[in-house]
């Protein structure tokens, strides 16, 4: 299985007469694209552009997706979730770098996310540095939230695919090959990456080849499958707890492991599990994952990450214990749940197995002061925000899309003082 990711570095995005890429500028014909992604359950659809450095705030942010297309078979892009079901991770995939499709979610949810392209808030999110093609669509009459979410997801994935398709006949700027090669005689430590999904109900789910993963047991997957769109985020109701599709497509742990594969480690593979609500289910998953890691992946070391909130920390702790039984050492990635400024080191995690002696912080919750902006896309009013949405507001970092990433694309960590 070999993934050949061919990337084009887009340097500007504008509206134009035709949807095309000229030089490194992406032109969008709004009407054309909206027609292509039309869906009866979505009305008042619009596309807008938010540029890095622009005094612009995008509100009601949902998922964020990097434009990609399977070069040989565009209809199989994002297999299972949007495209026809084929194996992800093999062959040529075209990618537009520096651009995202950014959904806005227009139904009531407990929490809303935002992205600031300029000002104090911009430094906290990776999405202030990308051209965000913001898709706004509203539910048609008699469309319930599950239908709306499914329709929005299909539309945004379709848009991501169509944009990438525009690059198909243009030579790429960069080509990266991802392949797990056999390494006979290699004595580097074998590393398995274990990722806990959080999937318990619709609209709070990552999709694996279109499946909601509710009852899955530990599942071996190839890292390329994750890089190539097998996992799509459809979590709209607990936005801070789910990883954006974009981050999965650019999975930091997987990319880092590939970068060092053969140098100081031997990348053994990936195991996916779902966090469970019952203790017995947590134990079962952890136990089985450990066996897979030991006997099928022959791992020496494991990196564990999660989605979701506090509960899934227990699943991780059980993983550590079962892996330790096999002599597999572990490191965990954890977001600290306590807001900075109050509480202490003891407040961040809810387990204390001595096997969890290596933990990397993916940041702590804190309130960020966001500056006034000239333009707001995606919404006028945010519950919990007093005053106009374009004004100076204080906002929790966990609802800034792209600020905290539980899978490791985080640049902040909490320190005690």
């Amino acid at each position, binding site marked *: 299985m070999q993934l050949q990711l061919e990337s084009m570095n887009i340097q500007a995005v504008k509206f134009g007469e035709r949807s095309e890429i000229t030089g490194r500028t992406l032109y969008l014909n709004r009407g054309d694209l909206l027609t292509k992604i039309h869906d009866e359950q979505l009305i008042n659809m619009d596309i807008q552009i938010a540029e890095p450095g622009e005094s612009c705030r995008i509100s009601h942010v949902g998922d964020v997706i990097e434009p990609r297309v399977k070069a040989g078979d565009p209809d199989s892009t994002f297999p299972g979730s949007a495209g026809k079901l084929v194996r992800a991770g093999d062959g040529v995939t075209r990618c537009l770098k520096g651009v995202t499709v950014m959904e806005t979610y227009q139904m009531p949810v407990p929490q809303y996310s935002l992205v600031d392209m300029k000002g104090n808030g911009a430094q906290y999110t990776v999405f202030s540095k990308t051209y965000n093609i913001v898709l706004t669509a509203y539910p048609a009459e008699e469309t319930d939230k599950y239908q709306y979410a499914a329709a929005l997801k299909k539309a945004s994935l379709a848009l991501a695919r169509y944009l990438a398709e525009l690059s198909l006949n243009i030579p790429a700027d960069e080509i990266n090959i991802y392949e797990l090669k056999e390494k006979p005689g290699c004595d580097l430590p074998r590393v398995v990456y274990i990722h806990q999904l959080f999937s318990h109900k619709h609209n709070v789910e990552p999709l694996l080849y279109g499946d909601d993963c509710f009852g899955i047991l530990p599942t071996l997957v190839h890292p390329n499958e994750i890089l190539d769109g097998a996992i799509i985020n459809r979590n709209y109701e607990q936005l801070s707890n789910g990883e954006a599709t974009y981050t999965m497509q650019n999975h930091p742990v997987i990319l880092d492991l590939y970068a060092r594969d053969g140098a100081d480690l031997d990348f053994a593979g990936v195991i996916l599990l779902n966090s469970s609500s019952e203790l017995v289910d947590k134990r079962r998953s952890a136990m089985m994952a450990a066996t897979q890691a030991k006997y099928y992946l022959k791992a020496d070391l494991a990196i564990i990450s999660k989605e979701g909130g506090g509960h899934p920390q227990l699943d991780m702790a059980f993983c550590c214990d079962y892996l330790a039984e096999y002599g597999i050492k572990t490191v965990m990635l954890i977001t600290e749940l306590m807001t900075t400024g109050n509480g202490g080191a003891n407040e961040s995690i809810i387990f204390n197995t001595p096997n969890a002696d290596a933990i990397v912080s993916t940041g702590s919750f804190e309130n960020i002061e966001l500056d006034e902006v000239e333009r707001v896309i995606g919404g006028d009013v945010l519950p919990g925000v007093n005053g106009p949405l374009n004004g100076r507001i204080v906002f929790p970092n966990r609802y800034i899309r792209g600020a905290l990433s539980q899978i490791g694309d985080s640049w902040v960590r909490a320190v*005690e*003082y």
Partner: protein
Amino acid sequence: MTEKFRAVHYTNQFFAQIGGEEKADIKPFIKEETVGPGKLLQNFLGDRAEIVATVICGDTYFAENIDAVVPQITEIIASYKPDFVVAGPAFASGRLGIACGAVCSSVMQNLGIPALSGMSEENPGLEMYRKNVYIVQTSGNARTMGQEMKKIADLGLKLAGGEETGSPEEEGYYARGFKKNVFCKVKASTRAIDMILAKYHGRPFTTEIPLPKFDRIDAAEPLTALKDARIALVTDGGLVPLGNPDGIEMASATKWGYYSIEGLDRLEASDYEVVHRGYDNTFVRENPNRLVPVDAMRIIEKRGMIGCLHHHYFATTGLITSLENSKRMGKEIAEKLINDKVNGVLLTST
């Protein structure tokens, strides 16, 4: 910053070389010069600061008259208009540690002047005051005072000058229990790989989140006479009367409520709401008895299986509640339960 800072030093009868235990009852007095460890402190302060006075008090006198002595000493210190105050170091000495903590705390609160101290890890004054007062790490006795005093001097000068202090590791003080996010040069995924490889190769590494220490609490004795027992319902599922009269928070709760169920055979959905935001509360909102089972308990009560169902239920939100607040609320609720002569509790959670 050419201005010379003014400092006041606080210490006890022993370090002031007045005497040992037999002099521990001396009342607070002032010497307008450096005394004992103050001389070493002055050396390290150099010409950036001058210790204009030393306040000395006997350990026993302080402990026995703390309510009067702290304001008195604070006033004395105020009269010297210092830019900062150093108390101790107390090393392992418990009474001095508590005195240093109390003096520093009062000076900071009432005079708005930075104050710091030095204590060893076992000093009881540390846990009491570390949140508010910068306390430099010292060993248990004065033998290693040299290095430690330098840290105290450096930190004192920074605080006096309003400079930003470094991390606990850099400055040598005990972490005070606050957190802030800092930007890292290397992202978390890379740090994780570096850390696991260090672990594999037996190289030293430091976990970024230390494991919590949970108290071990022994379970209460089981109820022997259930049919005579008064049972109360307690929940952390955040069920409160409509309107949330006590303003219980939706997460990180600091409060709990106590609500009458006198004469009720069941809870009616229209009278309640759920403030807890961490679970899908659809089913509880439909029928609050699913969380706070008044209906089932009344049946049990009528059948004589328990003595009676207590006339109030207790509620808070158990979502990202800090350990500290959890402990405090638990103790407060327990006290109320004891006052109300409750024998047993049915604790429901989500």
